[in-house]
């Protein structure tokens, strides 16, 4: 998307949002930037712990980039941009985390399944060898 157009509409929205915040002083559809940044941060940490670096590297990198951009925007007092970037970072991180956990769980399930098959074969082999030759 065009950064210019984005910046243009965002500015007007930011003014409106700020006005709303000032007037309403309660929850809006857009969470305040620091809260959202915290959420995004937590999500990225969770994704890393889940092993997204190995299993969902692309999504994790996207999340980390957007988070750092969000922080930069926040520093530049671009609250709306910071929030949006932080929101995107959060979903990217959550997706990375989910992908990593899924990949690991599938691996374990696969290993257990093949172990099960081996066990079954072993049992059949041993039972046939002892049961038949009496």
């Amino acid at each position, binding site marked *: *998307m065009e950064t*210019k*157009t*984005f910046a*243009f*509409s*965002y500015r007007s*929205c930011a003014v409106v949002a700020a006005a709303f915040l000032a007037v309403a002083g309660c929850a809006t*559809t857009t969470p305040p930037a620091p809260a959202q940044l915290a959420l995004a941060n937590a999500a990225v940490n969770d994704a890393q712990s889940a092993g997204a670096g190995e299993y969902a590297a692309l999504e994790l990198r996207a999340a980390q980039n957007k988070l750092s951009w969000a922080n930069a925007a926040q520093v530049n007092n671009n609250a709306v941009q910071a929030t*949006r970037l932080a*929101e*995107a970072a959060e*979903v*990217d991180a*959550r*997706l990375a985390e*989910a*992908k990593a*956990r*899924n990949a690991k*769980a*599938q691996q*374990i*399930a696969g290993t*257990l*399944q093949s*172990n*099960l098959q081996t*066990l*079954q074969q072993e*049992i059949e082999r*041993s*039972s046939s060898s*002892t*049961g038949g030759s*009496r």
Partner: protein
Amino acid sequence: MKPSVMSAAIAMIGTLGACATAPEKNASLEQARLAVDQVQSNAQVAQNAPVELARAREALREAEQVWRNSPQDARVDHLAYLAERRAAIAQEIAGIKAAEQAIEQASRDRDRLLLQARTREAEQAREQLATSESEVERARRATQAAREQAHVQEQLALSAEERNARMQQRLQELQAQETERGFSVLLSGVLFESGEATLKAGADRRLEQLAAVLRENPDHVALVEGFTDSTGDETYNEDLSEQRAQAVREALASLGVDPGRIQVQGYGEAFPVASNRTPAGRQLNRRVEIIVASDSANIPPRGFVGRAGGEPRGERGMRGSGSGQEQETPR
């Protein structure tokens, strides 16, 4: 051209276009719609990740709403992006749940298999134990039977000794003589009238005793030898003597002795034991001798050297002379 004019022109064209065609499409929103649609229709996602699915649908709704109100709003792209990502998350979460269920199931299956295997092992061990137990039992019974048999044999041997002792005693009572062919029991001539082959009553007691000996020792064979005095024809006397022997055999048979083991032989005038010139002597010569063998081999008749077994009837051997042959010539 200034950007604001540009965008205004575009907006106008867009509005004009709206009358004739569908509203301007948003690529991100299309993508989001597709993604949410896919996970929505996936039964596994609906079952395993309902919360995440709901969030994805909600995100899409939000995006749609903003887009309807102001299609050019930059938020549309952002919200559409979030919706699409949320749909992807829902898919992954569903996958995790499915994998976790598979892991649980595998664990249960493993336990079940192991239990089956252990049960089967226990069964087989039980069967083997039962088999080996029955084998042991069979072996035990076999040895027991063998032992019992040996015991019986022992008993038989013992009673054989006993029987032997008893036999000796009886034979002694019968005044049996030990010869090379066995024990010889004499039934004296007083038991037969001259020229007769009928046993007189006096033989009863001795025959009973003899029968007892033969019954108690079934594996011993007997030979009944008949003799006559010299009165009358030789051939006649041979027949007579044989008849006397037969008479004894029949008497023994009636006393329970198997006649099959009693051989019969008539010697006629041969082998007298006393002088035929006196009535007393002749009486003595009219006799039957019963040989009880020491085993089950056929008793060889007198005077036939080297012949054993078979019908002890053959050519006439030595004839008794007038002087009286008192020596027996066995074999």
